[in-house]
């Protein structure tokens, strides 16, 4: 009993270690050469470069070593796993892939093309198969990392929009299996697309994390927005292994993560740890007060929608209403609503949630809601409370409390002639892994709520949007509506 009560204190103490603020929990073994890197030169701790054909710069976090890939393969440990995709550049012409290998593997290549058989057969670029080289990173996590973690990251640019590509990663002698990935429609296009929303996969209770991913994969969504808390402790590499290696029957989560880009917000458990930052590639424009080489908050476009990912777990709370809010305002001001009528925001801690474990974050509400209101954000997607909740449309604050806006049938917003919503809909949809919480619908701003493990699918086509929430465990639908603006 006593040790249980002390555990939170120990955890809190860990999160206070100075190292985690910028780089996560890690140790540098001074003087030892990282495995596989025997060139005699001291290892470089950070790398920054413009991938071939890309209009953006990639910067690694500071870790034990970071270098461009070579063709070296680990002779003793040919493992190559955790393959997952994301975007760091335009979604209609790029994608990025990260993966982990044996410690001594430095090969960080990708082969890709539109002809699956050609990619499968290729050992090197040529004919219809193109190739790119990426970078490799090595770090020793303080917890759960064993002898260390060897990562690889590669960026592909200059692709055709709306096209299915096939790829494999690794290098001569050891390639991953071939995965499929598709580029987005061009910005402003009215082509239909769909995306999934989940969060709080940590602990993988009831194996609900891979179950949710299999359901999203079967639904054929184009990508996934994840509202944070992927793992229990972001600095624990063993937790990330559990996250990437989860499976159900013959389905591995990477079957889905390698084909559908995973765009994630930092959660209070992920802690913006080095492990998290190193394992994902997101847009890296650095703004005022931003850490993690610009991956702390970011935005991207997909077809006729604009997506903003924010970080609400910051060391200095002044950043919420300061640098981050200023960036948010500038970012949203750039959106042309005639071409991109839909705006989605995602972050971790909800500021509209009804009598669940965590109460609404009112400081966050004061910092961000006026901006969401000013730019008529359509949906805000959060987690942290492991439940399903949808708010009424909300616009404006009175005494710090949200004001319920004009509401149509089934609790949806109404739209003006310009297609702007009467209010923003705040969604909490998380818990595909974490323990379930109780929740209530008795708040004036709450439209519906359930204590379940939910995921949401948005299907967007032009100015019409269909929203469906499902229970990951039973597959049963929880909530649905269609909007036309």
């Amino acid at each position, binding site marked *: *009993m006593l040790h249980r009560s002390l*555990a939170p204190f120990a955890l*809190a103490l860990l999160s206070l270690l100075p190292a985690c603020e910028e780089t996560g929990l890690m140790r540098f073994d001074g003087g030892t050469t990282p495995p596989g890197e025997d060139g005699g030169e001291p290892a470089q701790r950070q790398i920054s470069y413009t991938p071939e054909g890309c209009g953006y710069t990639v910067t690694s976090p500071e870790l034990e070593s970071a270098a461009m890939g070579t063709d070296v393969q680990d002779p003793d440990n040919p493992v190559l796993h955790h393959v997952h995709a994301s975007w760091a550049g335009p979604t209609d012409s790029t994608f990025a892939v990260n993966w982990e290998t044996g410690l001594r593997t430095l090969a960080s290549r990708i082969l890709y093309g539109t002809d699956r058989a050609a990619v499968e057969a290729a050992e090197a670029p040529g004919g219809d198969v193109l190739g790119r080289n990426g970078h490799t990173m090595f770090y020793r996590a303080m917890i759960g990392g064993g002898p260390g973690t060897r990562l690889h990251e590669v960026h592909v640019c200059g692709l055709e929009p709306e096209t299915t590509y096939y790829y494999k990663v690794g290098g001569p002698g050891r390639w991953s299996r071939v995965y499929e990935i598709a580029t987005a429609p061009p910005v402003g296009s009215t082509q239909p697309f769909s995306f999934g929303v989940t969060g709080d996969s940590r602990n993988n209770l009831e194996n609900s994390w891979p179950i949710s991913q299999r359901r999203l994969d079967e639904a054929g969504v184009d990508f996934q927005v994840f509202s944070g808390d992927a793992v229990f402790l972001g600095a624990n590499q063993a937790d990330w292994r559990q996250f990437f290696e989860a499976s159900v029957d013959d389905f591995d989560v990477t079957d889905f993560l390698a084909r559908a880009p995973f765009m994630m917000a930092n959660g209070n458990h992920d802690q913006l740890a080095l492990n998290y930052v190193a394992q994902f590639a997101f847009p890296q424009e650095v703004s005022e007060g931003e850490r993690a080489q610009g991956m702390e908050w970011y935005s991207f476009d997909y077809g006729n929608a604009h997506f903003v990912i924010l970080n609400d777990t910051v060391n200095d709370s002044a950043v919420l209403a300061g640098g981050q809010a200023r960036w948010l305002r500038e970012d949203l001001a750039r959106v042309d609503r005639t071409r991109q009528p839909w705006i989605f925001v995602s972050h971790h801690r909800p500021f509209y949630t009804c009598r669940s*474990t965590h109460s609404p974050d009112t400081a966050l509400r004061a910092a961000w809601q006026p901006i969401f209101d000013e730019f008529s954000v359509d949906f805000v997607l959060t987690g942290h409370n492991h439940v399903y909740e949808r708010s009424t449309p909300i616009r404006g604050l009175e005494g710090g409390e949200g004001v319920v806006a004009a509401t149509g049938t089934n609790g949806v917003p109404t739209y003006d002639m310009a297609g702007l919503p009467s209010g923003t809909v705040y969604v909490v949809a998380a818990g595909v892994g974490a323990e379930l919480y109780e929740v209530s619908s008795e708040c004036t701003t709450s439209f519906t709520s359930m204590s379940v493990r939910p995921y949401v699918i948005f299907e967007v*086509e032009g100015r019409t949007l269909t929203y469906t929430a499902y229970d990951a465990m039973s597959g049963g639908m929880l909530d649905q509506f269609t909007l036309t603006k």
Partner: protein
Amino acid sequence: MTRRLPIALALLFAATPARADEAADLSREAAAAERRGEPAVAVERYRALVAADPTSRLAGRARRRLEWLEARAEGDYRPLSRYLALRERPPAERTRERLAAFEAEVRSFPEGRVARESWALLGEAWLALDEPARAEAAFLAWLDRPDLESSERVSAQTGLARARAARAGPAAGAELLRAAGLEATSTHATLTREARRGPLRVAAASFLALFLGAVLFVGRRALLTRDVLARAFSLGRLAAAAHVLVVPWALASHYDHDVGDTFALVAAGGAAILALASLGGAAASAREAPRTQRAAVAGLAVLAYGALGWLALDHAGQLFSFLA
């Protein structure tokens, strides 16, 4: 040949937007058919889409949907159509009457995925309606199917255990999983914890009461004398106590700022425990009580503090959010 190439290219480019529009139309029609519970129509539209524009993004989605639908084609898609009609309905419309009618239909479904998934849906839906006995029957029917995948067996067993727990208490649910060799599942851990929660609450409250009793006994008649008060609350002790109490609150609040209230409660309760322990110790010294009595008060104070922490986290529902 070389003269025809530019013409062919021009035709191809001219055709692309139309092809994309056709793909979008087919994709929309297929999705709508799925929502209406007409899988055979959806399959036909998805096939047409893949044929019309095989390298497009939408064809990728169509192939995935086809794979899912075609794996559930038994009975010419009739069972799937019935299953979707229930699954794609909001929970409020999954009424007892609808569930009972669907259950009767499922009994006549041919062996296959749809029958299995139907029992899973029924089990969860009955549980959501607070009908654990009917949920148990549905999960048992699922378990009875001959062709279960291993994950289905686990899901059916854990569903059955949750239904049993709802009917007969968490210990009964946990026992079912133990009998099935599924002690390693998180459902077993959750049910076991639920089962222990009541006794643990009693134990925690008992520790607090025991501690209070021990202080009163050890310090009897000397507790509130001027001398004991001065000795119990020296400046050094107050500083040490503040440190011990405030630091966990500060750390926990930093870690997760909305747990402040819970840890403030722990700090306030902890302050009371420390004050009582200090008083008891000083009074025991003043009475020249045996050293063992002072040691017992100190030991019980530590246990009481642990009990207090557990009760506060349990009350806030945050016990598990801190502990994996």
